[in-house]
């Protein structure tokens, strides 16, 4: 799936979250969105699946502008996507196996029970949860819930997978395993992925390109190597985790150029 966002604006609770956000992700690429908490990373993902509607701007998925689509129109598009929620968002009254099987049961009714079971077990093994099939979500740790959520997100081999902090709460070994799953989906199936993360080690491992979101806009974009060696003080502070710098101070520095800020005309 080819993704293009053009000048997307979104205000929530009186705050401008997305402020003329523009972004292009070619088909088959893994794009990491990094940025501090509350800068609109998850909001961006939610716009791509239509859970939030943009106030202005265009969101084109394979050339189709989905802004203004109703739930019914979005359904066809969503069937081609997978979404991993921060919390996993598993249905609490269903076992892990039933949760993972749900998209297949709802949308691929022609599949036999044994085929559904085979695919569920395959995906659970992929995320290291082969022993958790019969467990209820309440008996899982946060990381396990997230991995079960990932298995559910990819059960129908989607063309686009959106990951909302896939490695937060996971140990380093499991984080690497999840990163491998993301990479394998890209190399083997050509899946387009958008990963929202704070975990820079993970971002460097999985991303083809990384973009930093700040004040509702992508202020810097590049390959992992380009981001590592950036001179932009905002990005440098974020990737190095410094407590002092333009991100934590009322800055007069322009986040795009790193130079002293002058009045910038925003697109509308």
């Amino acid at each position, binding site marked *: 799936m080819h993704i293009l966002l053009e000048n997307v604006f979104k205000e929530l609770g009186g705050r401008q979250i997305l402020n003329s956000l523009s972004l292009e992700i070619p088909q088959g690429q893994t794009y990491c969105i990094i940025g501090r908490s509350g800068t609109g990373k998850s909001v961006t993902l939610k716009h791509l699946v*239509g859970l939030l509607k943009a106030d202005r701007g265009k969101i084109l998925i394979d050339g189709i502008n989905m802004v203004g689509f109703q*739930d019914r129109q979005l359904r*066809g598009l*969503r069937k081609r996507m997978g*979404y991993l929620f921060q919390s996993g968002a598993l249905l609490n009254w269903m076992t892990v196996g039933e949760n993972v099987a749900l998209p297949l049961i709802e949308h691929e009714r022609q599949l036999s029970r044994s085929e559904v079971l085979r695919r569920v077990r395959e995906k659970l093994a992929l995320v290291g949860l082969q022993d958790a099939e019969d467990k209820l979500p309440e008996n899982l740790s946060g990381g396990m819930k997230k991995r079960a*959520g990932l298995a559910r997100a990819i059960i129908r081999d989607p063309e686009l997978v959106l990951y909302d902090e896939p490695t937060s709460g996971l140990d380093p070994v499991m984080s690497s395993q999840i990163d491998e799953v993301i990479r394998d989906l890209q190399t083997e199936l050509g899946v387009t992925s958008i990963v929202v993360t704070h975990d820079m080690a993970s971002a460097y491992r999985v991303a083809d390109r990384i973009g930093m979101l700040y004040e509702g806009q992508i202020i810097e974009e590049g390959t992992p190597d380009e981001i590592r060696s950036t001179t932009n003080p905002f990005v440098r502070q974020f990737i190095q985790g410094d407590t002092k710098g333009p991100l934590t101070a009322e800055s007069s520095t322009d986040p795009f150029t790193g130079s002293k800020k002058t009045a910038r005309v925003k697109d509308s």
Partner: protein
Amino acid sequence: MILLRPFEAIGSQILDTAFKAGYSLTLFLRSVACLGGIFEKRKSIASQLYICGVQSVGITLVVALFTGMILALQTGLVLQRYNIEGFLGTVILVTLCREMGPFMCAFILAGRVGSAMAAEIGTMNVSEEVDALRVMSIDPVRFLVMPRIISLVIFAPVLTVFTNFVGVLGGSIVANLQIGVEYSVYFGKIFEYLEDPKTTLEIFYGGLFKSAVFGCTIAVIGCSNGLRTSQGAVGVGKASRKAVVDSFLFILMLNYFMSSVINRFFY
């Protein structure tokens, strides 16, 4: 400006109520549109029938038993004064079947099931589970709301029949032990009254129709409050409370209008 504040508050309350009513009505219509998928959701409906219905039977029957006994005691004492206590069974039957049975069941279901529906769906909403359904292209109305409405539309009338039956039985015990009415007289007058088919139709089917409408109202209001939940645990508590209060209000209002229509139809 201070003088205008009460009007602003009233206006905002009216707008909020209109929005809630509109949302609930839309939810009901969307659930009706999902009825085509009723067979696919049979397991979910069966599970809701058990959770919402079967588990409510015990408490409803206890309430029904004592309501029948109280009715018998209070009405019996008055009827005794005019030496017409023989009609006590008929009075209790008519009172329960026409009004008290459906009404009592609805109140119990609103408090027990409506609030639970709002809390359950509300929790799902704040923990992004409802969003997860949407993202999986699963319509939350078809998946969550429709089975709950169907289960209450089916079970509320069933529960009302049990309530009426147990209430009449409870009344017979008090009628016999405290008012001095023989069981044969108590039940004899009831069967005599039911000989007219029009009366039977009115008191039974009128009451059962009301129950089905109440069941539908409770489920729609519970689910609607759940789906509009925000603000975490506080929001879930608020949704649960609102579901009960709104259900009580709607049941009272609908009961009046339905009673008027049913009475006009039969008399």
